[in-house]
């Protein structure tokens, strides 16, 4: 039996193994993690005919360059990704959302994401990686998950097993839509802020700064004035929580967020807008729009239906 593997020629900025994340460990201080953009994660596995929760490689902005060694393997890339496959005698431009083939010695160069942040690489096979607390998801701060809890490293080997021999020409015509308005439900400390601040929060635009990663987004814009307490007794957080720091800047908690935090919560991003929010690159501006719980629930149902529709269109 031959060995099949990727050799990492360039690791990319923040390339990690991810799946659905870790449930039920917030109480012992372990973040959820998992693929940031769940829809693109789910679609990647659907195109590969993999099980729903199969590990993928997530990359941010600049992806990895991988040399493939072994038997023919099929793969697909999801997101809005500019990539190439360097074959023996030619360079092939990559197309997202469709199964493509890698043969021995081919190079997959995941050059960059276009006007977005995260992309996903799924293979019609499985990565030979470790699981920690039922998930492969890497959290680099806690150093847990596959790859010893680290991002991909230059020259490392990623072993591949269980290659599906049968080719399926799975393909999806899908253009990722961009949004600027992020819908938010008011948080438990909304009244800690001045009337002017509350108005500014839903009226003005905020810029996504470079201090943004899998843990959170730091925003820059008008200062949100706190008229009560700038610190609270630390309490639990959830994905999408928007806290206002003592300096008056909003920070949005993302998938690797610490399980507790001590800043007041002005609001929470609705579940349906999360996948799109994480894809907005640093430098872009966003605007928050207030919405109530019932509407958020309805919008989520629609969002789920849309994802299911997309999956049913794969052929």
């Amino acid at each position, binding site marked *: 039996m031959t060995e099949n593997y990727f050799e990492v020629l360039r690791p990319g900025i923040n390339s990690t193994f991810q799946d659905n994340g870790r*449930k*039920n*460990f*917030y*109480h*012992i*201080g*372990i*973040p*959820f993690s998992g693929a940031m953009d769940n829809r693109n994660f789910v679609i990647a596995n659907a195109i590969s005919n993999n099980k729903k929760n199969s590990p993928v490689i997530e990359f941010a902005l600049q992806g990895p360059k991988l040399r493939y060694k072994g038997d023919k393997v099929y793969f697909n890339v999801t997101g809005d990704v500019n990539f190439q496959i360097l074959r023996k005698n030619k360079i092939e431009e990559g197309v997202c959302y469709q199964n493509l083939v890698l043969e021995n010695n081919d190079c997959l160069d995941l050059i960059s994401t276009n006007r977005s942040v995260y992309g996903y690489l799924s293979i019609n096979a499985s990565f030979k990686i470790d699981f*920690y*607390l039922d998930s492969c998801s890497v*959290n680099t*701060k*806690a*150093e*847990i998950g596959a790859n010893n*809890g680290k991002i991909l490293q230059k020259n490392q080997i990623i072993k591949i097993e269980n290659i599906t021999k049968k080719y399926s020409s799975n393909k999806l015509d899908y253009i990722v839509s961009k949004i600027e308005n992020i819908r938010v*439900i008011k*948080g*438990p400390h909304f009244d800690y802020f001045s009337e002017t601040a509350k108005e500014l929060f839903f009226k003005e635009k905020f810029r996504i700064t470079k201090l943004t990663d899998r843990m959170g987004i730091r925003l820059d814009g008008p200062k949100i004035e706190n008229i009560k307490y700038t610190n609270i*007794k*630390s*309490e*639990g*957080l*959830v994905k*999408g*929580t928007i806290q206002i720091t003592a300096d008056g800047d909003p920070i949005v908690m993302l998938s690797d967020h*610490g*399980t*507790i935090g001590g800043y007041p*919560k002005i*609001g*929470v*991003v*609705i*579940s349906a807008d999360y996948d799109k929010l994480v894809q907005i690159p640093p430098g872009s501006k966003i605007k928050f729009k207030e919405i109530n*719980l019932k509407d*958020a*629930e309805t919008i*989520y149902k629609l969002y*789920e239906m849309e994802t299911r529709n997309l999956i049913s269109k794969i052929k």
Partner: protein
Amino acid sequence: MIKNISNLGDAALYCDFGNDVNREINLNVIQFFKNIKKSNIPGITNITPSYNKLIISFDLSITNFDKIKTEVEQLNFKNEIVNEGNLIKIPVCCDNDFALDIKRLEKLLNLEKEEIYKKFFSKKYYCYMTGFIAGMPFLGDLNDSLYARRLDTPRVKVPKNSIGLTEQFCNIYTFESPGGWNIIGKTPLDIFDNKNNTSPNLINPGDTISFFQISKSEFEKKYD
């Protein structure tokens, strides 16, 4: 008990037990946490106890706020006494190499180093919660003569396993991270074991902790 249940976004319940921080309120939070965990209500993805709040996250594709709230309210809680948790003994080396902020504390608290350590080691501490990134325990309460504010500028890297103090609390940095707590020593024990795939945390909410002092040579021996 719970004063109010509201929503935190569209996929979590925010259970408010009040604003005070004390053991009695926190025991209520932990009891409620344990009861919900036992109940196996479908769709719950995380339950996060803290000093005086409990946040219950759920999967919006399986359930919703109204359903979970009703189920949580219907749980018939017996007024059983929560078991006291475990007693865990933690060795601490207070060598100058590890006690990064002891000089600052001597000034700030107007106490000699020896007095600070005497007061620190003579008390048992209660674990209010574990949280953040890798099972960091938040312990209390310190002797009130040891209350100190955070560093004005947080340290960029606090070494893993450092013991820090701030206000009435004490914690152990379970991984190297930025932080502003006053560091008084270091333990050779791994409080969070990222290789342990079943129970990575040495300290859990509700446990009682007693610290004891060790010398640098003992510290080094335990490190082998």
